[in-house]
């Protein structure tokens, strides 16, 4: 049977214009080949910068911002479109091949109603009359589980939620009844419980229409639910290409095997009866000018040398909890007790020692470090500030810390911009350690990192805990991370604590409704996971 899409030896290059330097030629994708039959789904998976989105868009012969498809063949329905004229490409874009973007919120025109945008391509390419197209759209809205499908299209993009927009975008892609849809990380920006619904809707809709799809994501567990074949990419090259089953159950390459196993790590729970280092009792908080409490009646405690994971989706109040504990947002009620002393509500009232013993590590390491300071200054400042270290003593201690985070003395004079994402996060860890804290609050510290890098950071944090006996409060939305590091768990939802206790108890039935849904929504590295979950939810 003939392939719908065949890419042979594709090379994609771009010219970058670093300010103040001569332009540079960079290769983004090199020698990639793939084939996709009608009605099949191919998953493209890789870290950021692996070139997966670029390959996806090349199926429409489209290069974003100065990207050029320089070598190879892109054969769509029997013709090579790599160098096709723009008139030819216009005819196939939006008609034969359509695209679903990562951020539907940005991909919809804010000034136009959804219906107009959903049927635009269908009408433009003359694939249906306006009435037919609208009927198709309503049908798709219904199949994709959108509320009030008859009138949904009358709304403007800002009037519907993120998950609904992502479904509407899928409807927009399916409405012209194309042969191929490119899904570019369609669920990455969504909360885990929303992701499950959207993913299921996408899967049902594409199998219903019998359309082929390229599904691009960084999450292997997600793609395993939807793809027939998977291609693993790294640095613009193919690492491994095979059926989904083979990739998940019998990966041939080390890199693929690491990706498969990274979400399966577990950590044995430490139990401690020691006096808690941090106790939060009866805590309520609210942002100024808002009526609703963002935190209500929170009670948690963390024992020395253990890790409490605070889990929740966006809007659950987990980051707010960190802000209250650190004194950035004074609580309206309740107490924060640290090492037996009650901490002042706001930052001003806290002693230097209070501040030193409670450190924080942020999600985005690149904005957590002053870009004009060297690594040496960044790590050295707490030493100087809290311990008055100077000169050689200071430098030696900085080098020691750099060794502890497995970077070494060579990094001391570098600027943050010269480090990779993982290295940046390590420097932030060193800065926190430099203060010799009792407790470190880690706010989504691994969620901006690629899975293997994140794994390394988690391992480092665990090693440091064993050595320094420091406690962590680990804020995350990712259950796999929780399993890999937590001793106790607090599940938060809409500003409330829904479940709290030792890991073994929290993650064991009987569950409350929310925790049940949350745990079940986390994609697992199994082929039949989604079907199973849909039956039980």
């Amino acid at each position, binding site marked *: 049977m003939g392939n719908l899409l065949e890419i042979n030896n594709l090379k994609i290059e771009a010219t970058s214009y670093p300010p103040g*330097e001569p332009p540079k030629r960079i290769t983004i994708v090199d020698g990639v080949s793939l084939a996709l039959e009608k009605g099949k789904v191919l998953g493209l998976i890789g870290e950021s910068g692996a070139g997966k989105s670029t390959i996806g868009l090349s199926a429409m012969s489209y290069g974003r911002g100065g990207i050029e498809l320089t070598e190879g063949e892109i054969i769509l329905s029997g013709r090579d479109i790599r160098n096709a004229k723009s008139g030819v490409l216009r005819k196939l874009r939006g008609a034969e091949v359509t695209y679903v973007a990562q951020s539907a919120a940005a991909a919809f025109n804010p000034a136009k109603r959804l219906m107009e945008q959903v049927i635009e391509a269908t009408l433009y390419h003359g694939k249906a009359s306006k009435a037919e197209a609208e009927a198709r759209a309503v049908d798709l809205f219904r199949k994709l589980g959108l509320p009030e499908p008859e009138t949904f299209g009358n709304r403007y993009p800002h009037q519907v939620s993120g998950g609904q927009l992502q479904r509407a975008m899928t409807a927009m892609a399916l409405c012209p009844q194309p042969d191929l849809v490119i899904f570019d990380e369609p669920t990455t920006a969504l909360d885990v419980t929303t992701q499950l619904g959207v993913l299921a809707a996408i899967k049902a809709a594409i199998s219903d229409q019998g359309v082929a799809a390229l599904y691009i994501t960084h999450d292997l567990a997600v793609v395993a639910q939807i793809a027939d074949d998977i291609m693993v990419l790294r640095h613009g090259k193919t690492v491994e290409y095979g059926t989904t089953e083979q990739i998940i159950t019998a990966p041939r390459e080390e890199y693929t095997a690491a990706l498969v196993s990274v979400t399966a790590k577990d950590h044995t729970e430490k139990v401690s009866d020691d006096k808690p280092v941090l106790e939060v009792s009866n805590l309520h908080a609210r942002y100024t000018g808002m009526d609703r409490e963002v935190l209500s009646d929170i009670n948690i405690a963390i024992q020395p040398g253990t890790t409490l994971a605070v889990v929740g989706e966006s809007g659950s109040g987990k980051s707010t909890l960190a802000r209250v504990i650190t*004194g950035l947002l004074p609580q309206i009620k309740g107490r924060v007790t640290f090492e037996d002393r009650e901490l002042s509500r706001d*930052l001003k009232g806290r002693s230097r020692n209070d501040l030193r013993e409670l450190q924080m590590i942020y999600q985005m390491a690149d*904005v*957590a470090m002053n*870009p004009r300071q060297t690594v040496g200054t960044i790590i050295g400042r707490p030493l100087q500030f809290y311990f008055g270290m100077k000169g050689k003593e200071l430098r030696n201690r900085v080098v020691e810390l750099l060794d502890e985070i497995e970077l070494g003395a060579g990094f001391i004079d570098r600027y943050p911009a010269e480090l990779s994402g993982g290295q940046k996060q390590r420097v932030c860890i060193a800065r926190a350690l430099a203060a010799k804290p009792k407790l470190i609050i880690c706010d989504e510290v691994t969620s901006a990192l690629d899975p293997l890098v994140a794994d390394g950071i988690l391992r480092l944090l665990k090693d440091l805990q064993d050595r320094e006996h420091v406690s962590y409060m680990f804020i995350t939305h990712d259950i796999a991370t929780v399993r890999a590091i937590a001793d106790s768990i607090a599940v938060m939802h809409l500003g409330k604590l829904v479940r709290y206790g030792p890991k073994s108890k929290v993650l064991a039935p009987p569950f409350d409704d929310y925790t049940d849904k949350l745990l079940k929504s986390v994609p697992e590295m199994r082929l039949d996971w989604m079907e199973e979950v849909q039956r039980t939810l």
Partner: protein
Amino acid sequence: MRRVPFPALIGLFITTLFLLCAIFAQWVAPYSVSEIVGDVWEPASAEHLLGTDNIGRDLLSRLIWGGQTTIFVAIAATVVSFVTGSVLGLFAAVIGGWIDQLLSRFVDLIMAIPTLIFALVVLSVMPVTLPVLILVMGLLDSTRVFRLSRAVASDIEVMDYVEAARLRGEGRTWIIFREILPNALSPLVAEAGMRFIFMVLFVSTLSFLGLGVQPPAADWGGIVKENKDGIVYGIPAALLPAIAIAALAISVNLVADWVLDRTSSLKGGRNG
């Protein structure tokens, strides 16, 4: 140090040339500023490279002396504008609260009046001397610098690294001078170039209207005013300062662009 791109090089060269001429006007100018050396509106000759002006002074010398005044006043006004605007802007952003509100609303109010109009209103009751001129121009313009520096600082202020410094317990001085200022510097430096050009245009306009630098001192706007009557007789003396102003403005622009470009590349950095 990276290679300086060609346009910036030209900009640097011409700007430097202008500055040197301004500083060393005493030695560069062939004649003194007010010496009458020839007939009215003599054409260009070997003696008077650009001819003479409306009362027979050497035009080239007038232009060089005029450049000295114009550039000096513009630099002084830019300094006043910058020091006032950026210090208040940075403090407003870091302190926040009612002080920030008060300052920001006051600046909004001043900016609700076009600068030239406000300057005219104020100059109608003030004696027009160089210090008054510099102060009026500088203070009126500082509102723009205030807005920019406050905006830049507020953007930086919400960065996690500033929060990290706060959580460490750092004082206000450290946060302003060590965390915010180094990162705010490149847009501010580029803006300084733009403000300087604006000042050159501003002081020239005021002098042209007769409310800026007073005769017999020369400045570019004043030279236009003195020689404007020649235009209808086809004598282009009044156009020469235009060339000087445009050349200076464009070259400073080129340098400012380069500074902005060069420094902002440090901030972006590479990912991964």
